[in-house]
């Protein structure tokens, strides 16, 4: 599987490095445009708007590229190479997911640290850099950020595997390549079903884990501690950056991930005709 | 070499080799190409060449020396006999074809005589 990952990385690295460089350039540009006094010129605010759009676009492009790399195997001639290799469908899928995870971690980490670095580099040169970092970490809700990061990460991987699953189902059901876009409809339907299921289950079992204190709370407990509950993503955030997660929802997410992973692997292994 | 339409490939290659031997192009003691080399030259399956060599060996035209290769047998009588049977085959074929297009034996005989005389004059 390491070898599969190696070739997956070689296939995607140019595009991903490109995205990363673009993002870093934009961050630099943003700081330059806004200027040191914090006030922005007309051009500056245009640039900020443009950059925000591009950040969003870059993230989306990276995501779609990862999606496309799987699509290539199922809908294009590359499958003739990949699916005749002496490896299992699970290994192929695992390699693709791990490489995607690796890229997202890499890009978000580099972006995050570069943001801090840029803030310092374009900030007041009198301030001691190290002090600034220390101050920053004290100021930042590190724990909340980490939890947020992990959860948005998990939901992204879940979307990815759901897309893979939808593509596999789409490929299996419809041999006609002309309606290849069918996987997207399958994806929308499944995504709707899964999030409906998550909402239902978290309403059915309203027990939450407080990540600050590791206490289990019910809805009254949450109301008492003034937490906002985001049912759709299964975790909640209060004003002090204290977080609770719906326990059932977390298990639901993990179980659907496992089911989707093995489901997709099984389809690749046993059902798909190229 | 070009293959004809109605015979198995191995027989055609056998005939090809027989002609080479009869015509004296390949002499007694000459080495034949290896199976692989020959199959490459003719673009045919090595198994076919293998069979050709086996059949020719069985007919006593060639022999294989372990480790060194396959050779044409040095046997005047054998070559004469081969020449004879090859000639018979050709005559057979000729007469059959002539009869097919409507000539009688006597007519054919006369035509052959005339043809030989004409050839001699030239």
């Amino acid at each position, binding site marked *: 599987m390491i*070898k599969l990952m*190696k*070739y997956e990385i*070689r*296939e995607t690295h*140019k595009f991903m490095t490109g995205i990363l460089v673009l993002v870093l350039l934009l961050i630099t540009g943003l700081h330059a445009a806004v200027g040191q006094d914090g006030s922005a010129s007309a051009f500056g605010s245009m640039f900020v708007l443009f950059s925000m759009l591009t950040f969003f676009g870059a993230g989306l492009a990276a995501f779609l590229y990862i999606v496309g790399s799987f699509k290539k195997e199922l809908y294009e*001639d*590359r*499958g*003739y*190479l990949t*699916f*005749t*290799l*002496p*490896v*299992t469908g699970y290994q192929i899928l695992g390699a693709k997911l791990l490489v995607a995870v690796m890229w997202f971690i890499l890009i978000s980490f580099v972006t995050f640290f570069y943001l801090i670095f840029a803030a310092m580099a374009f900030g007041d040169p009198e301030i001691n850099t190290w002090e600034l970092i220390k101050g920053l970490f004290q100021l930042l809700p590190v724990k909340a950020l980490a939890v947020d990061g992990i959860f948005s990460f998990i939901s992204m991987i879940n979307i990815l595997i759901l897309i893979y699953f939808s593509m596999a189902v789409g490929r299996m059901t419809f*041999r006609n390549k002309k309606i290849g876009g069918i996987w997207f409809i399958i994806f929308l339907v499944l995504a709707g079903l899964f999030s409906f299921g998550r909402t239902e289950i978290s309403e059915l079992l309203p027990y939450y884990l407080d990540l600050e204190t590791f206490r289990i709370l019910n809805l009254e407990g949450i109301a008492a501690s003034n937490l906002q509950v985001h049912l759709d993503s299964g975790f909640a955030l209060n004003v002090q950056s204290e977080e609770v997660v719906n326990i059932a929802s977390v298990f639901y997410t993990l179980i659907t991930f496992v089911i989707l992973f093995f489901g997709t692997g099984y389809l690749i292994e*046993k*059902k*798909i*005709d*190229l | 070499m070009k*293959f004809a*339409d*109605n*015979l*198995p*490939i*191995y027989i055609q290659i056998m005939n090809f080799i027989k002609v080479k031997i009869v015509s004296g192009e390949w002499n007694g003691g000459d080495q034949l190409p290896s199976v*692989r080399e020959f*199959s*490459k030259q*003719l*673009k*045919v*399956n*090595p*198994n*076919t060449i293998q*069979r050709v060599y086996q059949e020719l060996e069985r007919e006593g035209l060639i022999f294989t020396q372990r480790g060194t290769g396959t050779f044409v047998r040095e046997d005047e009588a054998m070559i004469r006999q081969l020449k004879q049977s090859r000639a018979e085959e050709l005559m057979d074929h000729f007469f059959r074809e002539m009869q097919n297009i409507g000539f009688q034996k006597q007519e054919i005989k006369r035509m052959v005589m005339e043809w030989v005389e004409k050839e001699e004059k030239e």
Partner: protein
Amino acid sequence: MKPIVEIRNLTKKYGNKTALDGLDLNIEKGKVTGILGPNGSGKTTLIKIMTGLMRPTSGKVLIDGNEIGVQTKAVVSYLPDRNFLYKWMKIKDAGRFYRDFYADFDMDKFTKLLQFMKLDPEMKITSLSKGMQEKLNLSLVLARNAKLYIFDEPIAGVDPVARDQILEAIINNYHPDSSVIITTHLVRDMENIFDNVVFIQEGRILLNGNAETLREERGMQIEELYKNIFTEGGSGL
């Protein structure tokens, strides 16, 4: 000797269209077998099932005694009739890819094959012509010491010089411990390298036998037999 491929009552349906219809076939070990049939006869479906790209609707396929899976993929060297390599690759990268995934890949043999085919390892895959691409793919496939080679239309759409090179490479690298399956509709160019031929139409086997025996019995070359069988109505049988 046990056959390299055993196919029992193999059926493949796409919706209500039947591509393979209860097919039974043994492929002899150590032989070159030609699978002949017009487009849509089911020969590509058959190949795809043997290589694990498609699943049978019913029936059984064994290669070297095993059901199709990772184990058979490791011993089958398959030449598809399309460009399946990564676009970023150079020829030498493709060789490394094969070495990474197939234990039976022989790098020296690959290098020799490239020399024979007059291909430069530094060339980019995307810069190759159709004929060069075909020669590269064949070099990759032949450089494996596989138990079974499967060539799907190896000479379709390439010029006569490349065609000769490809045939020569197949003959040169064929050895009696391995078995070869070739599908083609260009029967004239390839028939002399077949030990056995299988005629297939509408997912069924029409005729299956030793090529030389068939030539002897029918008094014609395989190409003529092919034309007789597949010309309208299939009256040739």
